[in-house]
């Protein structure tokens, strides 16, 4: 029987949403597999999350050690390497912690590695069939993964349907098996993101610009459209990387999470890290000059035009209303 372990990330004693998505992913790998949750941390927060997870998983392994009070990937990797049996499949979230942990974990477990999986199409013997995306979501690909010596797989948060917790599992304490947890990397502190002048999370309508804006001077065009609509200008990451707008205007997993009524994506390709910051199912309008842009798969309304010409035209028409 396939043994699957899901490494569950949590904050302040509460599991991340992906905790409910791992069982669905596991079922798509092998409907008959046993699925065990693994949580690492320290003290009351860890006990709280482990307890909660018994409603979802029949077995929850907890590893309690002060060295993991803050999740340092090097330390967690050592603990997992000592606890996960050879040949197992390990599921990890493809988030900033998973990206830190999982590639190295696969080396230490001497197993295969596939990242940012968006779907599974079952197992054929010990060969797993996986769906991934490449080139910022522009194309999808089927890959096979030889899991005969186990596999570490990161799954994209939010892509597998969540299960409802109806289990009544048990917590197994494996803190004693974690082994040597010394590390060459030491966590110091978390520096919170700066608060900006404009709070994009408060606006019902966002005119959001991406790399398609082409030039810093063109931001004015978006600002004028936003003014006409009573909206606020937000943006994708490359605009912040180029220092054209401040970080607090960035929508996405490494920026702000917004819940507007209407989201106007102007020259944005639609990467999952960008779309991950848009919640509450807004009405999404995408304007992009590339008819194959991935954003058209997730938008409500799509328009194939040059934003530098389309935005002024829309602004003028709105002002004439």
């Amino acid at each position, binding site marked *: 029987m396939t043994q699957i372990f899901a490494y569950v990330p949590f904050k302040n004693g509460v599991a991340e949403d992906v905790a409910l998505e791992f069982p669905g992913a596991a079922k798509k790998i092998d409907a008959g597999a046993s699925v065990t949750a693994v949580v690492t941390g320290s003290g009351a927060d860890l006990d709280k999350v482990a307890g909660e997870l018994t409603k979802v998983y029949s077995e929850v392994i907890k590893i309690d050690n002060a060295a993991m009070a803050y999740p340092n990937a090097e330390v967690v990797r050592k603990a997992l390497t000592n606890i996960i049996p050879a040949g197992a499949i390990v599921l990890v979230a493809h988030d900033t912690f998973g990206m830190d942990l999982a590639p190295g974990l696969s080396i230490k477990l001497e197993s295969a*590695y596939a*990242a940012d999986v968006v779907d599974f199409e079952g197992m054929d013997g010990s060969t797993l069939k996986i769906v991934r995306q490449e080139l910022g979501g522009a194309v999808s690909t089927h890959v096979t993964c030889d899991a005969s010596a186990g596999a570490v797989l990161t799954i994209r948060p939010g892509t597998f349907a969540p299960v409802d917790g109806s289990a009544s599992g048990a917590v197994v304490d494996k803190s004693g098996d974690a082994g040597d947890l010394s590390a060459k990397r030491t966590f110091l*502190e978390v520096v919170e993101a700066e608060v900006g002048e404009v709070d994009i999370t408060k606006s019902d309508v966002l005119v959001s610009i991406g790399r398609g804006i082409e030039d810093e001077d063109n931001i004015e065009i978006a600002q004028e459209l936003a003014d006409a609509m009573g*909206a606020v200008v937000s943006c994708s990451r490359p605009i912040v990387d180029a220092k054209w707008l401040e970080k607090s205007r960035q929508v996405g997993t490494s920026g702000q*999470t917004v819940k507007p009524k209407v989201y106007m994506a102007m020259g944005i390709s639609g990467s999952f890290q960008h779309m991950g910051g848009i919640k509450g199912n807004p009405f999404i309008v995408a304007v992009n000059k590339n008819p194959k842009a991935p954003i058209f798969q997730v938008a409500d309304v799509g328009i194939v035009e040059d934003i530098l010409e389309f935005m002024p035209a829309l602004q003028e028409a709105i002002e004439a209303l």
Partner: protein
Amino acid sequence: MEILVCVKRVPDTAENEFELNSEGNDLDRDDLVYSVNEWDNYAVEEAIQIVDNLGGSITVVTVGDDEAEEVLRREMAMGANNGVLLSDEAFEGSDGKGIATILKAEVEKGNYDLILTGAQADEGAGQIGGMLAAMLDYPYASLVNKIEPADGKIKVGREIEGGNQEMNEIELPCVLSIQTGINEPRYVGIRGIRKVASVDIPVKGAGDLGLDAGSVGEAGAKIKRVDYFVPDLGDGAEMLEGSTDEIVEKLIEKLKAKGGL
């Protein structure tokens, strides 16, 4: 500080409309425009700034075919001192672990304090840096957006969810994957590229690196790509068509209905 920066030649997402080939199993690669992976430019820029402050030298390395040499030259035009191309028929079909195994062999030929990779490349895996570090038993930090060198150690900031920054202290030698935004990569003009056009770039194969051909390439790969496809995600967006004026008119009606105006 001796720094090695790993770079990859990738199809440029800004310059291409990706289409499948006539068999529908691969990209139509005939007219693809390639460039260096976006993240790798930030890694090279960071290396240049560190060496400007502390001295040392920068080597850029890639695993690829003959054409991959152009990305090494580009990064040398930016300011990297040396380039190395790792190329061999035996490398074909390598999965991420295979690429990391090849890079590890090259790392062991040198004496590097710091190894930089991009946070991710075209395949979106973000795997090579973490694998390489684990193979070398070096410490690793991913998604690095700040580096402050100190004696025998460095302080690094990692970008975590919500744009917060996680500060860590990490021993040298180490491997770091660099996130965009850490700096502003310098511009490379045609003149810069010309200056390095005739610099010799050594090419090393499996034999030179002491690699067993079975551990890399197709033979060693546990991950194999079967095909490319365009997913059927249901209806997708309702596309508004017509003249710009007509589209604007239709859009305004929809925006009114949805609370956008």
